[in-house]
């Protein structure tokens, strides 16, 4: 395969990866949790981390596998929760392919906005980076691993739905 073909292939794969990353954000915004999980591999791992300068430690704030994420989503209707809408704005920064293009390591910027139901005030809720690992195969792209590294640590009263 020539260099131009390789570049074209990588560009096509990058589009697939970007569409997957953006789709996960859209499914979460829509609270289409089944749709979100359908974009994830059965081996999916998800975590939210944040570095605390106060205790000089990297903290894990949430960590689940595919089953754990499903349980988290299934339990949501049973909780009393803030019903504000979250809007996840993602920008894919870098995509690095490994294993002959079958795996992609993706780094994206993340901003999460919160819009209140009463009056529709929108405020910036959280910022951070998303580190994704994406598997590419004949059936398209699937999310294998996601670590959200939050810069924001002050989340007010918190939220039951992750980013």
């Amino acid at each position, binding site marked *: 395969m020539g260099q131009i073909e390789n570049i074209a292939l990588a560009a096509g794969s990058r589009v697939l990866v970007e569409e997957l990353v953006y789709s996960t954000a859209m499914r979460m915004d829509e609270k289409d949790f089944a749709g979100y999980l359908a974009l994830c591999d059965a081996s999916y791992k998800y975590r*939210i981390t*944040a570095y*605390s*300068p*106060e*205790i*000089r*430690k990297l*903290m*894990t*704030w*949430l*960590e689940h596998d595919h089953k*754990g994420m499903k*349980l*988290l989503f299934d*339990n949501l209707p*049973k*909780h*009393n*929760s*803030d019903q504000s809408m979250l809007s996840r704005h993602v920008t894919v920064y870098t995509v690095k392919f490994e294993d002959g293009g079958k795996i992609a390591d993706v780094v994206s910027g993340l901003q999460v906005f919160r819009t209140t139901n009463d009056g529709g005030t929108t405020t910036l809720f959280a910022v951070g980076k998303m580190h994704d690992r994406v598997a590419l195969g004949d059936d398209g792209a699937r999310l294998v691993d996601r670590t959200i590294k939050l810069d924001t*640590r*002050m*989340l*007010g*009263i*918190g*939220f*039951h*739905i*992750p980013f």
Partner: protein
Amino acid sequence: MARNRQEWLEKPAFPNTHFVDTRVYTDEALFKEEQDKIFNKVWIIACHESEVPNKFDYRTFHHPGGAELIVVRGEDMKVRSFYNICPHRGNALLYEPVGNAKRITCIFHAWSFDTKGECIDISRGKQGYQDRYECKDAGLREVRTEVGFGGFVWVNIDDASCTLKEYIGPALDMLEEHMSMDLEVFHYHKAVVDTNYKLWHDTNSEFYHDYMHYFNRATGMMQPGYFDRKYTGYPNGHASVGSMSIKYDAYSGSQERAVGWPGLAPGGWILIDIFPGMTYNLRTSVLRMDTAIPLGPNKVIIEFRGLGLKSDTPEQRAERVRDHNTIWGPFGRNLHEDLLGVHGQGVAMRERTDSKWVIHGREENSTIHDEVGMRHFYHEWGERMGRKPFDPYGDNRLAKTEAA
């Protein structure tokens, strides 16, 4: 039957100890008085010793009485605290929440202090002040500091206060054997909530609010022994809730607990409230510490810490983190609901909302849904403030007159 305004303002049909006037949560003047008469008189947790592990490590702290503090470990490994203010022109000496400073040097005019609070250099001091003012006149204001009860760093603004041991008394006896080993903070975050600090402490002082938590309500509350837990009040307004065994496999989504906590029975749970806004909460494999730092009558910073053992293996620590996050993390099941609850109280009880009373009237032999924990707190509050929580300004008979 719904009530008209006169009926709404009428005192509840309980003893005066069983309700409070909502002005104790909303009144600016009362809040300032609390800072003077309560927060600047009692022992407050500033941080944990594991946050300043090495000599010259420091941590800054906003004291609920209003002062900004530096907590610093000296070359002699002793932890001391000082006002974070330069005695020269009032600039903050340290800006970052943590750091390491052999010399604490003000960025403004480079006056320097050591970790014992002594001034060690005044830039061009002799030229400017001659013999009128020198380093011996410019020491930092030291604040009483003790490390104890799980390795927490406690501070007290009042130079004449009792010792920390005297202040705590027997309140933490139930936890003592569980805190004999070195602990370490693995989780720290804070939340600013538009509510009164006492409302957060109230939530930590009653379990009747388990109705707010689905899993506590639908599974935990059904477990044998749940209603046997008893409140015990201690001097100085502290209170504890006795241990119970939680059947975690009855909680959907909970996993089998392997790590646990030394000396704590599997599924055990001990909660101790320290007046006026700190709570030790030992459950499963984690010690959680809440510290409420009021910023005003309707605004509070709550600091949340999760602690494990310093000797934890990576695997043990990972399990403690998972246990912590399931319930108490920023995305955990219960913390968001608890914060949503006190946020709602802050919305409903702001000044001019015509809120009037909060009822602490449940009596169930001091067991878990009894509201004796809050009654115990407000008795102490009344003693320290010299005011009646049900009638802080002595004017509530007006409402009776109106009703008559």
